[in-house]
Structure formats: C-alpha cells, structure tokens
C-alpha cells in the first residue's frame, strides 16, 4: 500500500465538506441541517491538522481548537433558536418556517 500523504487527507476533507454541504442544502429537517454544519466544520479541522502536522508547526492545531470553540457556540445557539422557533410554530421543516415571507 502507498504511504498516506497530506493529499489523501485533503481529498478526504473535500469529500466530507461536500457531503456536509449536501446535507445543509438538501435536508428539510433543521436538526439534521445543524448536524451537517458540524460535518463541515470537522472537514475544516482535518485540513488544519494535516498542514499543522506536515509543517511541524502547532499553530494549525491552535486554530482547530478555536474552530471547535466556535462550533460548540454555534451548536448551542442554533439549537436554542430551534427550540424558540418550535414554540412559535411547531415544525422543524426548514421550508415551512416562512413567517418572514411576504
């Protein structure tokens, strides 16, 4: 078997990013849309850690820690908004939440 190069990790990261974007664009269930956002942020983290390891430079991993922090804040707030939304209109389907549509 060939040794694993950074390109392998980058290809994996692109694939994960595309899958996550597909989830965000295609799914109607808002909970699953938020899960897809986590997939996208994880793809970014794979990228950062790969370059950090390749260049023997820890700054990439520090950046990944910040990305994880933002992901946690985003998940907490997104789910809070979802609960607030569910109280006003009992649906979690993204295309049925059209209260602002004229």
């Amino acid at each position: 078997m060939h040794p694993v190069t950074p390109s392998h990790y980058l290809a994996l990261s692109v694939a994960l990013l595309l899958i996550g974007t597909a989830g965000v664009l295609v799914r109607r269930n808002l909970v699953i849309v938020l899960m897809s956002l986590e997939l996208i942020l994880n793809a970014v983290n794979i990228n950062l850690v790969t370059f950090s390891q390749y260049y023997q430079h820890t700054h990439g991993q520090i950046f990944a820690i910040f990305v994880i922090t933002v992901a946690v804040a985003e998940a907490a707030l997104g789910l809070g908004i979802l609960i607030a939304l569910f109280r006003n209109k009992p649906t979690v389907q993204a295309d049925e939440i059209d209260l602002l549509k004229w």
Partner: protein
Amino acid sequence: MLDTAFFYAFALLVLGGALLTITQRNAVHSAIWLIVSLIGVAGLFLLQKAEFLFAVQIILYVGGIMVLFLFVIMLVNLDEAARERQFRGRWWVALGCLALVAAETAYFVIKGRDAFRFAPRPETPASPLGNTEQLADVLFSTYLLPFELASVLLLVAIVGSVVMAKKRI
C-alpha cells in the same frame, strides 16, 4: 503500512458516517451516525499525532454536542417530521451544483498535478515536549488574546442560548 490501513479504516468511518447522517429519516439515527463520523475524525487526529485534539474531539463533540443534539431531539417532537418528505423540492439542483464543484476541483487538481506541490517541509528538530505541552506553550503566549476572546464568545453563547430557550425572561 499500518498507518495506511488505519487511515483508510478511519476514512471509511468518516465518510460512511457522514453519508448515513444526511440520509437517515429518523433524527436519532442521524445523530448516532454523526457520532460514528466524529469518532473517525478523532482517529484521524490521533493518526496525525494531535493527541490533544483527539481528546478534545471525543470529549467535546462525542460527549458534549451529541448530548445537546439528543436533548433537543427529545424536546422537539420529530415523529411527525420523520413521516413527512425528507428532502427539499429541488434537491437535484443542489446536488447538481455540488457535483459541478466536485468535478471542477478534481479537474483542476488532476490538470495542474505538476504545479500542485506543497512547500518543502522545514528541517526542524523534533521537540522533546509532548503535543499538549507544545499547544499550551503557543496558546498561552502567542494566542493569549484570542484565547480570552474565545471565553467571552462562550459566555455570550451560554447567555444567548438560555435567553433563546427560556419561555419568559
């Protein structure tokens, strides 16, 4: 050799878990496949000698965020949503655009294969410190201000999510 085998195993976990996450009808099943995918990512971190991020990934994502998701799935009634149509009306447009992006990326990478080269790695001697120590050294010196700002961000997120989820303030 073993590294390669592990890489492909974890890649299978990551991509398989991700694909099943976005295709499951039941949100709880989605959450479980998301756990599988995130554990795969954690394994990739370990494979790249980022032990601290491996631990953070397991504790924060698999332990923290997934519990949050499961709680919300419990609070929000998803039985009805599971019976309805799962994908948006024009999902093929979205998938077509994504396929276009993927094809474009692949085309340029293959076409520019000779130019697609990483800068040479610097010849730095291996540090005697462990991964966590190295991270702490940088995080608490160079990135001290962003670190403190991150704590403010988390505080805002905590207050914000309580305000959002509470019925009456």
